[in-house]
């Protein structure tokens, strides 16, 4: 579960970016920089606090065991072999490819299904619409832990426990948060687009597929990225559903590495750090690629509307 998903009203209108820095244009520059200096210093300090753990992680993952706790910025002895050790001990490559497959499947399925449902709520008017949408919102509040056991038993009944299917299977049916998000976005698409298409004989599905979806690319990307992240970091479900180490996703595998090498055991922390870094890098890379979309999406969230 990601710490927080700060996206509600993903309007993504272009003014958002401009609004982000309103004062920059209204005040003379030189004076500003000076007045901002203490703030910048404060932020720099905070940034060090936020970034140093990464630096420490990278450094520790390259140290020999005895140096892990010396807290020096750079290893005295560079031990690249930590990475080959992880590789040799654990089927890391297999775990990475499992994670990639599960995360992509989860993201694509949930994006498509949620978009479909969201379009249903955004475009049509039908009996019980508000009741149903209220139910969608209500399920957002439902703690996952509450249905963990029966959902497990259902997957068990259809013989899919012990496989990766339960990690993404529910995504075929949409997810409340994304439905909400995408509905907001679809509501923002000018209605005459659809009407014009209807006049031209476009089917309802065509409206969705050829108009709503292409116009909503930024929102779809946000959903994709959020779901990839959620799936990539999920520990609880792999713990419940996967027993065969060859099927583990990265977090589950990393946990196995921690249990074997970590606490009170062999205490090969440097191996654990190397494995942690391996698990982290792909997400950071994804963030680098999709950063603009994520930040735009979040920035345009209407704070006042909560």
């Amino acid at each position: 579960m990601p710490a927080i998903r700060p996206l509600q009203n993903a309007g993504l209108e272009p003014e958002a970016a401009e609004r982000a820095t309103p004062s920059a244009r209204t005040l003379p520059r030189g004076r500003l920089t000076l007045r901002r200096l203490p703030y910048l210093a404060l932020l720099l300090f905070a940034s060090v606090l936020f970034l140093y753990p990464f630096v420490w992680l990278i450094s520790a993952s390259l140290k020999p065991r005895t140096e892990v706790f010396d807290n020096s910025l750079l290893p005295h002895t560079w031990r690249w072999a930590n990475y080959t050790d992880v590789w040799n001990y654990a089927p890391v490559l297999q775990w990475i490819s499992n994670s990639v497959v599960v995360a992509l499947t989860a993201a694509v399925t949930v994006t498509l299904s949620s978009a479909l449902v969201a379009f249903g709520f955004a475009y049509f008017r039908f009996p019980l619409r508000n009741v149903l949408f209220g139910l969608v919102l209500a399920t957002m509040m439902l703690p996952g832990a509450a249905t963990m056991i029966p959902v497990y038993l259902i997957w068990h009944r259809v013989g899919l426990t012990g496989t990766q299917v339960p990690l993404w299977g529910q995504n075929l049916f949409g997810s409340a948060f994304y439905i909400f998000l995408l509905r907001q976005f679809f509501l923002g698409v000018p209605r005459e687009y659809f009407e014009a298409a209807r006049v031209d004989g476009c089917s309802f599905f065509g409206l969705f597929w050829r108009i709503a979806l292409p116009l909503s690319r930024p929102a779809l990307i946000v959903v994709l990225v959020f779901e990839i992240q959620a799936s990539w970091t999920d520990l609880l479900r792999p713990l419940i559903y996967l027993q065969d180490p060859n099927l583990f996703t990265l977090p589950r595998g990393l946990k196995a590495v921690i249990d074997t090498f970590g606490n009170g055991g062999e205490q090969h922390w440097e191996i654990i750090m190397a494995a942690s870094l391996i698990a982290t890098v792909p997400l950071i890379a994804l963030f680098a690629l999709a950063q603009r979309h994520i930040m735009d999406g979040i920035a345009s969230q209407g704070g006042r509307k909560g």
Partner: protein
Amino acid sequence: MTIDRRSFLFGASGVAALTLAGCGGVKSGGSKSGSSSSGGASSVTTQGFGKPDDVGQARIDAFKKAYPQVTVRINEGDFDPQQFLSSVASGNPTDLVYLERGLIGTYAAKGALQPLDDLISDVDIDTGQYRKPALKQVTVDDKVYGIPEFYNTRNILINGKALREAGMSPQDLSTTDWNKLHANAAKLFRASGSKISRIGFDPKLPEFLPLWAKGNGADLVNEDGSPNLDDPKIIEALTFAYSLIQEQGGWSKFKAFRDTWDIFGSGNEFVKNQAVAFPWEGWYVNVLVQSSPNLDLQSVQFTDRQGNPTSFCDGSAWAIPKGAKNTKAAVQWMKAMTATDTWLQAGAARAKTVEKNKSIFTGLWTANTEADHQVHDKYVKPSGRPGFDQAINNYYASTESAFAINPSKAGSEIKTAWTDAVNRVLAGQQGPEQALKQAQSEAAKAYSAVK
């Protein structure tokens, strides 16, 4: 502490020394047409075995040789109760599970393991070859549920250099005289302010509570399998062991300091003078001899308060989960992995490793009595490093006098109860008496539910 045997290699030569392929399974056999007794091609899967070391690999090879048409797949990773139970519950378990013998009673009572008697007579395993305490641990209601593999005992290992500097002898850290031990532990402990720099004597709580209890003449589990956790002698033993930790910085600092040790490396806690003494299993001698061959290792047998050597033994066993597909191959595996001949081959493999590393053969500690004796006679020789030799001899001596925790259908629950109790004491939440009384009532409840 229950580090598995794989640790042998990790400590000395690093994980990279393991030459097995990375993709999670050790695969072998396959389509070669075999004329072996087990019939057509089949496969056998395991969980909990971790990654095999030289000794493990030699025995796997022995199995493959005997049953060439059986494909072996070893799912890496230590035994994980949740993973195991989920696999049984989902009806798709591995053919074999490798777990601590103390857990077998609980899982047998739950119906998660199969009784093995019929299978054992099918492939003709002589259960008399296993050490009695080990066999007792895997027997529930007169049915055998597991085949014992290793046999670990505990003695006290000592940092000889630190000891000499303090002008003490190993006997000064004997567990016969608790007052003396307490005073000496305090003397050997070093700290400046809140930073600990050396632990004098680590009683190894919570895991070695059974040892301290036995040293005081009490068992955690009664002969009939019922819990005996609030025995005054056990309360006294915990009070004493806890006082050792209190004397040396208190648990939170003590544990945080210990978490930073490089237990398996060349900068281990003895080399770095971070510890003077603690009780530990025999396999740790092998770790030390490889990671720090020049260490001045001293040792003394764990004794009760009358001075009689005592040690508690445990170890792993092979068992077959309920719902396993290939029980025949599984029991063949059990037989092959624990047979005397197999152990001798493993001994030869270890001897080779030892020779290559110019190291010392420290013993295999198997639960097969005959094999253990033969391996000892054949490979354990004076090494010219008397400290290590002495330690090895101590463990061999303890092997004959060791006790096992009595088996119980609530073995796992009882263990959880006393472990949690000790942790509550360590965390300062409860006193020993209160904690063990609570543990006793928890354990008694679990026991009466399965009795």
